Each structure stands twice: as C-alpha cells, then as structure tokens.
C-alpha cells in the first residue's frame, strides 16, 4: 500500500505549495493566514499523536507547551532578544524541561489518574500565566517583535512565513514517522498494545514513555513559538484545558496512530470551525454536539477512510 499513500501525500503537499499564489490570484489572501494557522497547530497535533496515538498516554495537558513556547518568544522579546534561533531554542528547551518534570511525576500513574493529573498540572501553569502581571496576566501580552532570522526568512512576510510553517510541519510529520518506526517507537507502541507482555520480555515502559513525552512537549513548544509569531498576541488561554481538548480532537478526528491523521484532523476541525463561525457567533453550540457525535460514531477517524492505520 506504499504507492497510494505516497501519492496522496505528494498531491497534498503540492496543493499546499500552490496555495499562496493561487489564492492571491483569486484575491483571497485570507486563506494564506488560515492555512498557516492550521499548519502550525498541526505540528502540535502531530506531537500529541506521538504520545497519545502511538503511546496511548491520554495527556490532557498538551496545550501547556503551546503556551510555554509562545511565552518564551514573548518574554524574550520584552527583554530585547529577537534572534529567531534563540527563540526556538528556548521554546523547545523550556518545553522539554517542563515536560520532563510533569512527565516524571505523571507517568508513574496510568489510566484516569494520568488524565486528571496532566490536566491539573496544565491548569497550574495556566494559573501561573494569569498571575504573571509582568507579562500581561489575564489579558496576555502583545508580541514586541517577531522572531528574526537575519536574511534567511522574514516572518513579517505572510507568504514566507507560510512556507516556513509548511516546511516545519512536514519536518515534524517526518520526524514522528521515523520515531514510531524505530526501535524506540516499537517499544512505545508495544507498551500501549500490551503492557504486561512488554514487561515480560524485559522492557520497563517508564523511561520510553517519559522520553516520548519530552519529545512531544518539545515539538509542541516549537509550535507555540510559531503560533506567537502568527497571532502577534500571547494569552494564557493558549495553555487552557479547552485548548488541550481542541488538540486532542485534532488527533482523534484524524485517526490516531497514523502519520497523516493529526494533519487531516487539524485541517478538518479548523475548517469546520471557520465555516461555523461564518454562520453564527454561537458556533460552539453546534460544534459541541458535532464533536460528541464524531466520537460516538467515528471510531477510526478520517484517516481510516483512506487507509488502514499503521499497525
């Protein structure tokens, strides 16, 4: 089944590459912003898929790393540090450290406890964000300066930023793809499939799960840094559990444990949101039941329509 999958990917990437000139020509540059936002959040979804879809760890606190990455960029900007690579390094590094701390405690638990404890820790970070009056507190902060990359790429140029996001999204997808098919990934997936069996052959799942958790957090931190540049405004709400729930939906909707799933899910969810927003300001009253129905009836997710998820 290799050729059809590769074909689907190639076509999709080609479409994404062609989008900016196409919509500019059609006079609808708004779509460049929209799709860029989708691709940035897709990176977050791809990172969550690693631990949720493949690792079976229902982390309800993944949005924390979006917030950490975004605040890293914002706070560095306030103090005059505008170098993009520095932004990324801090966003990724801080997210990895926090993920390590939260993961070290949380991964000792499982099942419902894990869900609740990851939720609680994220909420803790959210309250921390609100209480930081220095950086806007409840209202958030405006981005002082976008990440600068010298002459390489100017994030103030919407199209250049778009292509950068596309490249990074594809990079994230590719990285996760390699990881889940490597020896490390096999252990992670085995632990999800049958933990008792995995222990019996000699693997202690904890270190592998923790490593995956840290990798996922770091990747999501990068998404956060990009997101701050996209929205120019950083709010604690980025770390809220509603945001975590959104990212989870992107993963589930698209189909867990598949490479394309999180990307498909992000596009689907955010497009649906855009359409609903156009109809009514109370779009959530429609989205809510839609999500409920999708969970009840749509077990395999969208990717399941195209092909069987990876075994």
């Amino acid at each position, binding site marked *: 089944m290799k050729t059809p999958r590769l074909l689907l990917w190639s076509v999709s990437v080609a479409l994404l590459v062609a989008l900016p000139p196409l919509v500019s020509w059609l006079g609808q540059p708004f779509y460049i912003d929209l799709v860029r936002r989708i691709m940035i959040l897709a990176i977050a979804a791809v990172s969550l898929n690693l631990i*949720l879809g493949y690792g079976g760890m229902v982390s309800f606190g993944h949005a924390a790393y979006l917030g950490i990455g975004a605040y890293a960029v914002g706070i560095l900007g306030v103090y005059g540090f505008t170098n993009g690579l520095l932004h990324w390094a801090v966003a990724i590094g801080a997210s990895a450290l926090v993920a390590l701390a939260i993961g070290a405690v949380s991964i000792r638990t499982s099942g419902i406890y894990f869900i609740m404890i990851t939720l609680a820790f994220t909420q803790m970070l959210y309250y921390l964000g609100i209480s930081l009056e220095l950086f806007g507190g409840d209202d958030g902060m405006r981005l002082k300066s976008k990440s600068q990359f010298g002459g390489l790429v100017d994030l103030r140029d919407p199209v250049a930023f778009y292509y950068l996001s596309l490249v990074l999204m594809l990079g994230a997808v590719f990285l996760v793809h390699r990881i889940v098919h490597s020896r490390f990934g096999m252990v992670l997936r085995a632990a999800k499939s049958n933990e008792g069996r995995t222990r019996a052959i000699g693997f202690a799942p904890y270190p592998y799960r923790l490593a995956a958790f840290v990798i996922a957090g770091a990747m999501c931190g990068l998404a956060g840094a990009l997101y701050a540049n996209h929205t120019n405004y950083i709010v604690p709400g980025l770390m809220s559990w509603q945001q975590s729930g959104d990212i989870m939906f992107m993963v589930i909707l698209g189909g867990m444990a598949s490479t394309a799933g999180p990307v498909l899910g992000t596009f689907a969810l955010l497009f649906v949101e855009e359409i609903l927003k156009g109809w009514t300001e*109370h779009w959530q009253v429609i989205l809510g039941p839609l999500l409920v129905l999708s969970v009840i009836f749509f077990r395999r997710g969208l990717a399941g329509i195209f092909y069987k998820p990876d075994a």
Partner: protein
Amino acid sequence: MSWILIFEQLLNGVQLGLTLFLMAAGLTLVLGIMNLVNLAHGSLYMVGAYLTLAASQWTGSYVAGVLLGLAGTLVIGMLVEVVALRALYDRDHLDQVLATFGLILFFNELVAMLWGRASLYAQLPQYLRGHVELFSGSSYPVYRLSVIVVGLLVAVLLWYVVTQTRLGMLIRAGASNRTMVAALGINIRLLSTVVFGFGAVLAGLAGLMAGPIYSVQPGMGELILIQVFVVIVIGGIGSVRGALVGALIVGIVDTLGRAFLKPMLGAMLSPTAGEAAGPALASMLIYLLMAVVLALRPAGLFPARG
C-alpha cells in the same frame, strides 16, 4: 494576623470543601461504578445555578427557585445520560473525555445564548443575608454558614445511605468490583442511572449554592471541575469518604493558601516577594499537594478498589 481572621478563613475553607464534596461525591461514584469520566459534571453545576436564578426571578420565591432548579438539573442530567453517556459506558476514557468535552462546549454556549456572557449575580432572600456573630468580635456571613450546614447535612445523608442502606451497599460493591456485582444479577445499569441522577442533583445543588458567592457565568463549571478532579485523585476513586476528606483538605488548603501565603511570604522574605510569588504559589498549592499525595499513595487516600 488575628485568630478570628484565621478562624473565618478556616470556615471559608470548610465551606469551599463542602461545595467541592457535593460535586466530587457524584463524580467519584459514577467513575468508580461505571468507569465513566464525565467532564460535563461541571455543566450540571452551571445549569443548577442558572436554572435556580431564572426560576427564582420568574416565581419571585427563592425556595421555589431552588426546588425548580434542582428538578430541572435532574431532568437535564437524565437527558444527558440517556442521549450521550449511555453510548460511552463501553468506550475507553479518551473517548469519554472527548465526548463530554463536546458537551461542555455545547452547554457553555447554550447558556451564553440564553442569558448572555456576562456574570450574573444571584439575589438572596432576606433571611439569608447579613452576618451573624459566632463569638465576640467575629462576624460571619449567614449565607456561607448555611452553605456549610447544608453541606454537612448532605454529607450525613450520604454517609447514612452509603453505609446503612442496601442501596449504599450496592454502590460500594459496584465501586469496588463492578463485574462481580453485575454477575450477581444486580442491574448495574439501573444502579448507575440512580447514582448518576443523585450526582446530578448534588452538582446542581452545589451550583445554586455557589452562585451567590462566586457569581454565575458560562464556564463556571470548568473552573471548579478541575479542583474536583484534584479532590478525587487525592481522595481515591469510587470512595465517598475519600471525596469528603479530599474535598475538605483541598478546600482548606486552597482558601488558607490564598488568604495567608502572600502576607506570610511578605513577612518572611519581602513585601515584593509576597506580591509577586504569593498569588501564583497560592493557586499552585493544591496541585503540588496532589503531586505529593500521588507520590506517596498512587491510588489516593481511600481507594475503593483494593
């Protein structure tokens, strides 16, 4: 820092704790018996507050409002159970979390559509306003005292039902080993529906009582829900006793922390340190507490399952 102030904050902590207990009791039993994570429990809390507010204004009577609010919450809770939750009992926790998350979005927006996004303030009848002097020098709000009284009454009622009645025995057995209870021929579905209804009413009660203190607004359920989760994690899933102990601990720690951490830090370190770190640390306190409890007792303090 006077002893009276500490005592009053302690009472506030107990009041918060009992409110949390009302929420936690229903949630932990449904989780323990039916293995169902229900994020929409917070929505029932919110619905209780709004319905009571609306009914009180409509009928002009606080008591009528309370009764209608509770009845309405029960009806809505049952509807939600039949329409959405029944399909989720056999699914894994992830699906339950996501589906009930969808319910939260729905209810928050519905409430905003009907009553707007602004905070509403519930009116109290004359006999519940004002203060009472507990002992010389202390003046404590009548309403908060009545919340404590009602909370304690419910706790006693629950204790009685859970430990002294046959229904309670079935509940405890179901929370401890659901398959066994079902295998013994008990209609576990009916049991869980009854428990769910109970829990919905308790949540509505917590919501309508909280309204006058914390204000009524869309999303109020989620704010308290996370604290309820902390309570359940600390107390242990499936255990009403754990819910009570956990709730009181969380309520008291959180309230005392918010009241005294800033001045304490200010006194020990410096006023600016207190100003900067105090509120942040206070809001993180219960989560740190949860982490510590989990490190020592991974299944909580009083887990129902052995």
